[in-house]
């Protein structure tokens, strides 16, 4: 049954451009190129760079942040944001330290870290999806609240003396130079990549981020999807808290201070639109590696961390500004 009687409907092909063309024009490739350049520059800059153990050490610069960045990427694609993630780390780590005083063992501590993360995610989710608060403000509030509770509990004290079994989660190696955290990083990359790109749930995230109204009008339960994403972000923050606590072996209320901004930077650098609706996990993975390389490379050159942040901040603006600047100069319009 076609509308134009007598004529066959015109054939519309599935795809406009072939897969290679799409890959060639992707953000991920651009970022990957930048990553390779930085890698090469690093090999020139320092003879110690190519040492496998050095490289392995470098991964600790980004693995924990990247755990959260994966979930944050989904959340930002859906049009929300969670600035409380570092606060969640502080609270989860504090809860672990507190439980430690009661003689809770390593498995219990892990369970507590994850549960607190999940609980904090639930608080954010309820504030945003049930009360309808804008996530950027609500999570600035919970950021202060979560870390604030840590300060109330700890003041200027610290929790120490975590059991040695816990240390493996932060400092252990699974095989040769492959650390437990790096393994977790690769596993999560795979998991989140699959979830975002190959499931109905992932498809719904994109739909919501592009047009929440139309998504609602298409029968997607927007609030439920967002709630799940806040829970996931909370859980990943809990996991990061467990690993970080295990690695540092102590908890202070200032733990992971200002990580939220570094994590958001990682996500945006990875090509996720801060306005929601687009981005990929591959991009976030590459962005994490690029940030890791920059931090490590500059570290080898004895450049202090604060100066590295100039580079990262500049990179963040530059990668977004340059294509727009070129378009502006060429066509006189940004969009």
């Amino acid at each position: 049954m076609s509308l134009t009687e007598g004529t066959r409907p015109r054939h519309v092909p599935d795809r406009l451009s072939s897969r290679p063309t799409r890959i060639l024009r992707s953000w991920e490739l651009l970022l990957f190129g930048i990553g390779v350049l930085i890698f090469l520059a690093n090999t020139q800059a320092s003879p110690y760079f190519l040492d496998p153990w050095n490289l392995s050490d470098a991964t600790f610069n980004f693995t924990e942040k990247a755990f959260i960045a994966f979930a944050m990427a989904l959340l930002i694609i859906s049009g929300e944001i969670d600035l409380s993630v570092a606060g969640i780390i502080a609270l989860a780590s504090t809860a672990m330290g507190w439980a430690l005083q009661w003689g809770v063992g390593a498995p219990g501590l892990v369970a507590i870290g994850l549960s607190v993360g999940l609980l904090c995610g639930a608080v954010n989710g309820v504030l945003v999806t049930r009360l309808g608060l804008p996530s950027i403000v609500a999570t600035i509030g919970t950021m202060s609240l979560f870390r604030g509770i840590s300060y109330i509990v700890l003041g200027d004290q610290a929790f120490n003396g975590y059991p040695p079994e816990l240390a493996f989660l932060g400092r252990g190696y699974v095989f040769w130079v492959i650390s437990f955290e790096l393994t977790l990083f690769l596993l999560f990359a795979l998991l989140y990549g699959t979830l975002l790109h190959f499931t109905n749930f992932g498809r719904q995230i994109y739909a919501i981020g592009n047009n929440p109204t139309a998504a609602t009008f298409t029968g997607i339960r927007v609030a439920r999807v967002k709630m799940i994403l806040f829970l996931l972000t909370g859980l990943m923050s809990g996991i990061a808290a467990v690993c970080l606590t295990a690695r540092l072996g102590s908890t202070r209320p200032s733990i992971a201070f200002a990580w939220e901004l570094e994590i958001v930077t990682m996500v945006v650098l990875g090509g996720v639109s801060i306005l929601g609706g687009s981005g990929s996990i591959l991009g976030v993975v590459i962005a994490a590696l690029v940030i890791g390389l920059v931090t490590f490379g500059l570290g080898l050159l004895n450049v202090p961390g604060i100066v590295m942040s100039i580079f990262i901040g500049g990179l963040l603006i530059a990668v977004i500004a340059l294509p727009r600047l070129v378009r502006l100069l060429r066509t006189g319009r940004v969009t």
Partner: protein
Amino acid sequence: MTRFLKSREAILLGALLALVFLAETRFSGFAAPGNLVRIFNDTSILIILALGQTMVILTRCIDLSQASNLALTGMVTAMMNAAMPGLPVPLLILVAVGIGLVLGALNGLLVWKLDIPPIVVTLGTLTIFRGLVFLVSGGAWVNSHEMSAAYKGFPRADILGLPVMSWIALATIAAFAVAVNRTSLGRAFYAVGGNPGAAVYTGIDVGRTRFWAFVIAGGLAGLCGYLWVARYAVAYTDVAGGFELDIIAACVIGGIAISGGLGTVTGAVLGALFLGTIKNALPVAGISPFWQMAISGTAIIVAVAVNRRRTPGRIILKEAKA
């Protein structure tokens, strides 16, 4: 009058008075004029920065770089003072405001000309400006003994019973009250944030208006850079670290809607004073200052929940109009 009583500002004023009263019951003398003046003076910088941030938020943007801007300008003036103690303080203030304006304009240009989301721009400049503090200072501190007496003394100088710092805050409040309510740029902030599409129809350039909001916020951050460093008599890389969130908290508590177009100068000032009062009330009430962060976090959540914008939908039925 009835409109005022129902307003967010009235609720906030009530909460602020209740807070002062509560503190007074725990510690008699808290509500004494002298102490209130001291609290106001302590909060001056937050008030000034919150006013700048308010302009930015009104236009549906956000400026996360204010505290880094403050740290950079503060460090530059402190180093200039240490190197050339003879430079007059007004000149240093001018330099501070000037640098602040330039940094704000950088944010504004990226938002206006390249249409980059403000949160991304200022997230980037937040780290860049902070890193620049380290670069210009080499990580060194400028300590009290390296600063001239005039440099440190100016904000504390007493005029008619009030420190200059308070006078500057009062002047800023007055200037904003006039500028926001009675100039076309001030009204354009509301129009651009309230309904950017409609603003175009009224001949308002949305991008340019946002640019000016960032410039103003930057200039005020520069001014506060000098004030902060001079008042605390020390400059180092981490000055005012994380303060950008306190500023946003003050605005949110003051009822400035993060979705733009809604909020008042009074609200921003009250929001800042609310945070400032809590900060001062905690120690006298015998509560550890470590409670402050959790309390301001809770205040933000409560404020944004109370100020939540409700969309009633269309009113079509005749009897529903009244």
